């Protein structure tokens, strides 16, 4: 039997431009948790070309925590990142398998709170930790409508 598809997998399908750079494998260990497995992509290397830039961890954590929040929505609606706090502990090498773990901490007043971290698969070494805050239902007026 096929595993159920996480709602965020529909957003980050092969049609999403981000997935042209790295493949994400979604795992749902239990309710309120989501794991994303990736290989550290060469396209996100830092200046030495060997280790991944911290910016990749920021990008992955925002994606994974936002996906975790989408998975907890009672009805389909857009979400938007409101705040992202990230600590970077270690830079993995290009090609190393990584796992991004996220936990849905709760929702109050239309704002979802999610925490997450990235670990290196081979030894569990902590790469980054984060807390993300997401607005459920995005603003109807974007900067586009104010400035054209």
């Amino acid at each position: 039997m096929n595993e159920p598809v996480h709602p965020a997998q529909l957003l980050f399908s092969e049609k999403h431009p981000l997935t042209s750079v790295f493949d994400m494998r979604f795992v749902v260990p239990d309710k309120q948790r989501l794991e994303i497995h990736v290989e550290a992509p060469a396209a996100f290397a830092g200046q030495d070309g060997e280790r991944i830039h911290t910016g990749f961890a920021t990008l992955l954590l925002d994606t994974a925590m936002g996906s975790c929040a989408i998975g907890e929505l009672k009805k389909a609606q857009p979400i938007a990142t409101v705040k992202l706090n990230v600590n970077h502990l270690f830079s993995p090498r290009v090609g190393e398998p990584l796992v991004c773990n996220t936990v849905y901490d709760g929702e109050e007043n239309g704002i979802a709170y999610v925490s997450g971290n990235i670990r290196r698969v081979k030894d569990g070494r902590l790469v980054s930790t984060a807390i993300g805050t997401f607005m459920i239902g995005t603003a109807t007026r974007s900067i586009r409508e104010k400035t054209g």
Partner: protein
Amino acid sequence: MSAPASKLAEWLQVETAEEDGCYRLAFAEHHLGNIWIRSLHGGVSGSFIELCAEHEAVKTIETDGQPPLAVFASSSSVDYLRVTKDADLYARCRIVRTSRRLCVVDVVCWQDDETLPVVRGTVTLKIER
């Protein structure tokens, strides 16, 4: 204009702008987060802020004396102020404090109008000398 050199900077399509302390992310389709409203991915803005802060810190430290062996983000805190659109993103960096081992940089980003910032962030960088 020149670009901060790294694969990430290439992917983000970042270049230094003419004004001192300013950077530009040239919009590309792969920067989108929500493909229906065509807004930039929050992680793309966050990465851009970290990259700009890093580059600005290196530039400042080099100007003040010996170039550092490495500068990398230790932490970042990013506030998303407005919904972005599918257009270039600009950043203005301000060094708040540089010590021997750390540098704190504030970064404010906008798209068409600097008086309407879309994202802001503070990055703490570790300096290795």
